[in-house]
């Protein structure tokens, strides 16, 4: 049986960064090519994005990915 990967808690600073850039969820969603609901789910921690989408979001804010998604202890 394949061992399960450890459960990591990953928070994000999407709401803060969005406010800094004065971006709505709709506008961010359009920039990274997802729906507004998906951005909302990521922001509220309901959905963890793929690595690809994570990097796309980070690039959108001009920050490294670990500044947007933070690993919590």
């Amino acid at each position, binding site marked *: 049986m394949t061992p399960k990967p450890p459960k990591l808690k990953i928070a994000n600073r999407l709401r803060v960064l969005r406010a800094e850039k004065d971006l709505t969820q709709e506008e961010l969603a359009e920039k990274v090519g997802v729906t507004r609901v*998906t951005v909302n789910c990521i922001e509220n921690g309901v959905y963890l994005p793929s690595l690809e989408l994570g990097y796309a979001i980070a690039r959108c804010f001009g920050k490294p990915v670990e500044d947007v998604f933070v690993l919590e202890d």
Partner: protein
Amino acid sequence: MRAHLKRAHRWIVGYAVCFSPCSLLFVYWITRNGGTMPEGGLYGVMNNLGFAWVLSLAYCVAALLFYKEFRESLLSRLAGFREQDERERLVTAHAARNTFLLTLALQTVLLILSLTTVSLVRNPDGHGMLSIGMGFSSSNLDVWAREAPARQEGPGLYFGGHLLPPNTAPIFLLTILIQLAAFRLSSRRGYEGLGA
């Protein structure tokens, strides 16, 4: 060549859909006239259009089975699939998994019910006996039988028979096997890391 085929496919499907109301009205009108169609130019034309409609319907049924693109566009719209981004694709995958397992379970239950016989016997001394059995016989394989095999008659038999028509068993078995085979075939490459 492929573009021509696609255009022809769109025309045929469009004709099958758009001519349906006319065709149904025509059939209704003929039925009201006692099932006979008067001779004449317009009726002949309608008859030919109706025949073409039947052929287009037959094409649609075949395309549903063998034309993947058509099947996916039609049935995913019908089921309300939303796959605009990765989260929606994940939601769809979860929903499809649950639906697949539920359908498989339901078909298995129906298969078992079609093979199960129940008989309730009332003895002359007033006591009753309920017997439940399972069996597979050649009558199960006669899918095109007009009626299910007759119930066994016996002294004191109060109720006896199959819970479902026994000749539906091969159909359930076939659909279960096709679903399992289709899933295993389409998921194998993905599980091996070779792409979906």
